[in-house]
């Protein structure tokens, strides 16, 4: 299996452990990753300028199309954005023509067909649960995990098509394959609030806090995410809650490939697992 890896802009500086742990885990399943110098997916300029967003997405899709490889996204916001642009471009011929004109400057062309996948798609649909199960040498016991889906892998469903948008269970299954149990919690499908960070900090923080408390109330030991922005948000909000003397438990957030990597017997340090998480996981 071969994909071109789309790390997205936030990973290299803010969440490098997401990329390293994903690479380590994918290596276990003989997945080969091509490294292309992609540009921004376009999500951050979506509110500014429609065409700037579409062109950014299209350029990335054209870059992977050139190599004939499916795209493997780590960040769900990148994933949702790229899928969105792809669907729109396939529907709107005039727009496609215009974008192709802009891509020409870089010698690129919008490809006929490109698969855009998220890490969770790849694990669930391409690698398959039973194959993950086979490599699971160190399953967790008694660990309760709150699956935080992240908006842009569920909604809009006609664009992203990962799972049932109202009652999904693929992420829970992926968590359970590590031996951990997943908890049902009221806010599991809600937004982490990161997209308003820096724009409406109070609202962003309150939404994040609500989620952390909701997961904690449901009896989870930690929250598991598969998105760069969600991880950044929970790290930031968790730290703020502790600083402000939160009385209840402040659940840390773990990236899914870190959780999976541990159950595959990989070294926690190599997966970039922090001290707080280590203690939490009682390894």
């Amino acid at each position, binding site marked *: 299996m071969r994909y071109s890896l789309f790390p997205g802009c936030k990973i290299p*500086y803010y969440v490098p452990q997401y990329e390293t742990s994903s690479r380590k885990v994918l290596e276990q399943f003989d997945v080969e990753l091509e490294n292309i110098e992609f540009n*921004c997916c376009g999500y951050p300029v979506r509110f500014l*300028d429609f065409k700037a967003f579409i*062109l950014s997405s299209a350029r990335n899709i054209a870059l992977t199309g050139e190599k004939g490889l499916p795209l493997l996204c780590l960040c769900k916001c990148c994933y949702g954005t790229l899928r969105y642009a792809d669907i729109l471009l396939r529907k709107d011929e005039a727009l496609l023509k215009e974008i192709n004109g802009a891509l020409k400057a870089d010698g690129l062309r919008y490809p006929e067909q490109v698969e855009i996948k998220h890490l969770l798609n790849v694990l669930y649909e391409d690698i398959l649960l039973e194959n993950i199960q086979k490599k699971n040498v160190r399953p967790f016991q008694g660990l309760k995990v709150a699956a935080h889906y992240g908006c842009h892998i*569920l909604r*809009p469903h006609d664009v992203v098509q990962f799972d049932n948008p109202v009652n999904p269970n693929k992420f829970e299954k992926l968590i359970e394959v590590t031996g951990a149990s997943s908890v049902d919690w009221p806010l599991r499908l809600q937004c982490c609030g990161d997209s308003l960070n820096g724009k409406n900090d109070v609202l962003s923080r309150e939404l994040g806090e609500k989620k952390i408390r909701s997961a904690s109330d449901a009896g989870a030991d930690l929250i598991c995410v598969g998105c760069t922005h969600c991880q950044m948000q929970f790290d930031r909000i968790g730290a703020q809650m502790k600083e402000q003397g939160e009385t209840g438990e402040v659940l840390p957030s773990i990236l899914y490939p870190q959780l999976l990597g541990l159950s595959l017997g990989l070294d926690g340090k190599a997966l970039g697992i922090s001290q707080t998480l280590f203690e939490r996981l009682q390894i």
Partner: protein
Amino acid sequence: MFFNISFYVALILFGIGTVYKVLMWFRRRVGDPLGKISAPKRFVEAFKGVFSAVFSLKLFRLVKVWFLEIFIQKQIAREGFVRWFMHFCIAYGFIFLLLMHALARYVSQKLFPEYQATINPFLFLRNLFGAMMLVGLGIAVYRRITNRTMRLTTRGVDVYALVVLALIALSGFFLEATKIVSHERYEEMVSEYSSISDEQEAQALKAYWAKEYAVVFPKTPAMDSGSLAKGKEVHLLNCASCHSRPTAAFVSFGLAKAIAPSALILGQKSIRESLLYFHFLVCFLGLALLPFTKFFHILTSPLVLLINGVMDRSKSSPANIATVQAIELDACTHCATCSLHCSVGPIFQEIPNKTILPSEKLAVLSVLASKNRKFLPILPVISEGASICTKCYRCTTVCPVGIVLQDQWLTLDKGLIHLECPEPFIRIRDAFKARFDSDRGKAIIPLTSAKKKFKQGVGLSLQGSTFHYCFTCMTCSNSCPVVVHYQNPGEKLGLLPHQIMQSLKYGIQDNVLGAGMVWDCLGCYNCQENCPQGIRVADIFFELKNEAYQQGKNLTPGERESGEPL
């Protein structure tokens, strides 16, 4: 006399400029936008930092950085062999010419007592280094003309540097060529240095020099084998110890051959002297202005590579980080490597704001860091460029002079907030919200008919116009995590999603743009997913923001406060 005076004037100007620049490193507020740390404190901290780096094990790392990144410049090789070769040619051509040729009196003559500019290997080497410089410059010009991004970023500073170096090299070669062909010069030399007594010997030497040294005489001497043999004899006795054959000066010799037909004119003293003056004056100009031009990077880029090679910013004092950030601005060579790799660079195609490109954004930083208020009108432009940056860290990893651009951007963001010019999202939101609030409660709601295009499809999305299908079931509002977060959502958000859809149906677009809901939308798509009518609610919110951005992107802070610019 003239040369000495102009040289010393240039040197003094260079000295003053350098001292000024160095002082500015401790005064510029670039790394310290609030100006909290005093210049003397920064100076003391810098001294301590340098002291502790040099007298510690870090010294080994400094040596390593010097060898790999300054001496052999491996980080430029990362950008491809041609880039490395280009810079290597210019840098080493320049350095060797400076040492061997320009500073011959202090370097070459001290190292090699037998040094003469006109004998080999020096005659050859001078041409080699000059040719290296020209080849490098040629590649640089080609790169700037053919590469789209480079073309965009080429500024006066780049043209100046290329032109000055080219003029120095070309005037040098031309001077040498005119000297080669000049019979006047030949005769001056003969009368000054030779001991030729009879006319026959003089003619023979002329013949030999015309043939072997490419001197062009008004009356071509007879070049029979007898006189050539005789000429060689005289040459060996009188000239050979100071003059290698000019073929070694391969560039100048070629030029000499090319100008041979007009040699009698070009070889005149007045032309040779003009070329000489020109050659010197361009060199002196380059020297005098060096601290204020791209050439300053010869000193600052290695400095920044060394500093950032050993500096651990997580443990450094804020004073030192601020100082290094100021030095970094002077170290930028404007090579545009950052812009070529920039993750949001392609966005420039759609949003033509040059400050999206990191190399250009860095250039405006120094203006921002000064207290000059003249830049206020362009602040919104800078803040737009700054806000589009995703802080992906790529520019920092590719910068050939090791500038930690990431930190520059993070401090720029702080500085913009300090200057009351936050990112466009906030500026535009606040302006529209202010107007929304001032309109609220007025007896008559000003109905503005929506643009036709908007009604048809709200901008570009295929399904923007789906708001027409709304029957106000309020599912969108009830499923919105922002709406349900508030006790009194109507007050907090202005209009709720279903009200916005309804407003759009009535064609009230202006009012909608100021509803807090549009700006506090998370983009989570709950509304859209749950809408029984398939209305692209969240997509419409994105498009409303696009519309607001188009209308209000260049609001200055003053306009933003008044809330009246729209």
